[in-house]
């Protein structure tokens, strides 16, 4: 079965926690619109990579069948609590662990009561998959993995989904430019922290809309040289590994989350 859809969504919780703030409302609406498109693609599983799930030893994969509970973001706690509601496709996650290990990327399952699912995964799941109805395979961001190794992970996850005859949606969770306001701001006037980051973000988004995996890889290389991209934009590596290639992309929303760049992008595969 093919990969049926793919999306880039921000992991910052502000659009979810405070949707009545105008600069963040547009991102929230865009994420919900992307959720509509995702459901229309009728995936059996979401293949998720979030820049905010940090690993340093081995590659970690979520295998807890159902993760629930409250989560409070360490930075944005004053805006409210987040509700975890994530179902794992355990069999597929275990197949990914085996495949990654066979590919030389040592991997381990994570199945612990109370495990703190990262903010990005919770936020994206709330927007795209309310109620956590569609099970997911969630992979961590090992800080020592580069773009190419992360692309390998996305590729093998998609291959395992295919092997299990599952329609997969590939979800890349993370931001664009990672520079932010390090002081209190009037959130009703939130904007990208500087013009250079804004321009770099727009250039990268244009490259996405034009389509083509190779061109986007090149664009990310340039982008990382001009803006401080979120975790080297490894979430896009996961997406590119998962989809192989794409025809074009639709930007559903672009804006700032406390000065950092954020976008909701639908990658069209055919």
């Amino acid at each position, binding site marked *: 079965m093919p990969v049926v859809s793919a999306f880039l969504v921000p992991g910052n919780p502000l659009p979810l926690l405070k949707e009545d703030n105008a600069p963040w409302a547009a991102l929230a609406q865009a994420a919900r619109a992307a959720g509509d498109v995702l459901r229309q693609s009728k995936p059996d599983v979401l293949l998720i990579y979030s820049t905010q799930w940090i690993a340093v030893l081995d590659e970690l994969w979520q295998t807890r069948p159902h993760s629930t509970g409250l989560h409070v973001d*360490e930075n944005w706690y004053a805006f409210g609590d987040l509700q975890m509601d994530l179902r794992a496709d355990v069999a597929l996650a275990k197949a990914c662990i085996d495949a990654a290990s066979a590919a030389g990327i040592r991997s381990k399952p994570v199945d612990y009561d*109370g495990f703190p699912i990262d903010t990005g995964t919770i936020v994206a799941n709330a927007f795209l998959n309310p109620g956590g109805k569609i099970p997911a395979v969630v992979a961590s961001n090992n800080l020592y993995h580069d773009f190419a190794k992360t692309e390998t992970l996305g590729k093998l996850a998609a291959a395992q989904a295919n092997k299990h005859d599952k329609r997969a949606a590939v979800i890349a969770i993370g931001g664009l430019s990672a520079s932010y306001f390090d002081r*209190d701001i009037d959130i009703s006037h939130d904007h990208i922290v500087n013009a250079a980051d804004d321009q770099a973000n727009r250039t990268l988004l244009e490259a996405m809309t034009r389509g083509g995996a190779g061109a986007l890889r090149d664009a990310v290389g340039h982008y990382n040289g001009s803006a401080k991209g979120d975790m080297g934009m490894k979430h896009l590596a996961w997406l590119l590994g998962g989809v192989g290639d794409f025809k074009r992309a639709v930007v559903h929303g672009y804006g700032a989350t406390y000065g950092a760049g954020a976008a909701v992008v639908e990658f069209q595969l055919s």
Partner: protein
Amino acid sequence: MTQGKIVAGFVAPHPPHLVYAENPPQNEPRAQGGWEPLRWAYERARKSIEALKPDVLLVHSPHWTTLVGHHFLGVPRLSGKSVDPIFPNLFRYQFDMTVDVALAEACCAETQELGLTAKMMRNPNFRVDYGTITTLHMIRPQWDIPVVGISANNSPYYLDLNTGVEQMETLGKATRRAIEKSGKRAVLLCSNTFSHYHFQEEPEIPEDMSREHPQSYQGYQWDMRMIELMRKGEIREVMRLFPQWVEEAFAEVKSGAFPWMIAAMDYPSIPAELHGYGTVIGTGNAVMEWRLAA
């Protein structure tokens, strides 16, 4: 009211492996020992705490990273289960801590007074980070002394190192001012590893000490050089070398706890006591004490 004072400062690193190896009732996973020299170092530090009888423990943790300002725990009692997102196999700990909110608020106000952004964390559902919990458990497992938890503002990474260190030193001065006005006997805890080069794969048995050694010879050399300077009371030289140490040993002290504590203690020239040193997944960890008062 008697003027408050900082009675001691400790470098008190937070590898969760140490809690895991001790098998306390609060932690779910069970271990067959491991990292004994470091745990024995903490035994000595615990005796110091017992002798000092502080009213409050203040801990600065790199695993509560904040982007906008320096944050302080501001809920009187925080409890729950803390599962380490990096080492969930080792650390799933039921914590229950009493926060000295009055002192935290005073530290926050003094920090703002000195020109930094500072905030009180008032969300009762907040999950305290494993760095704070590990350091507090290892230094005082009874959990019978109120605490002040301080975040690690990201400035040393986001801005340049010197600017970030200056912020941490200012935070330290603000902390000292608040303590002095509080009338309390305070102990400072710098929750930092030194050399932070580490292995990237975990042994099948995490506590298999045949696999434990410094990951980096250069990191080890830096740790010994800095510990020796601290033992000689040459803290100004330590701070002069600080940027090079951070760069060449990939030292976790970059996150700010060390300059915060040293500045709060007003750069003590007394020799520090080394309670012990050991590696955890290859990182360098020292338990050290500066005793400022009886």
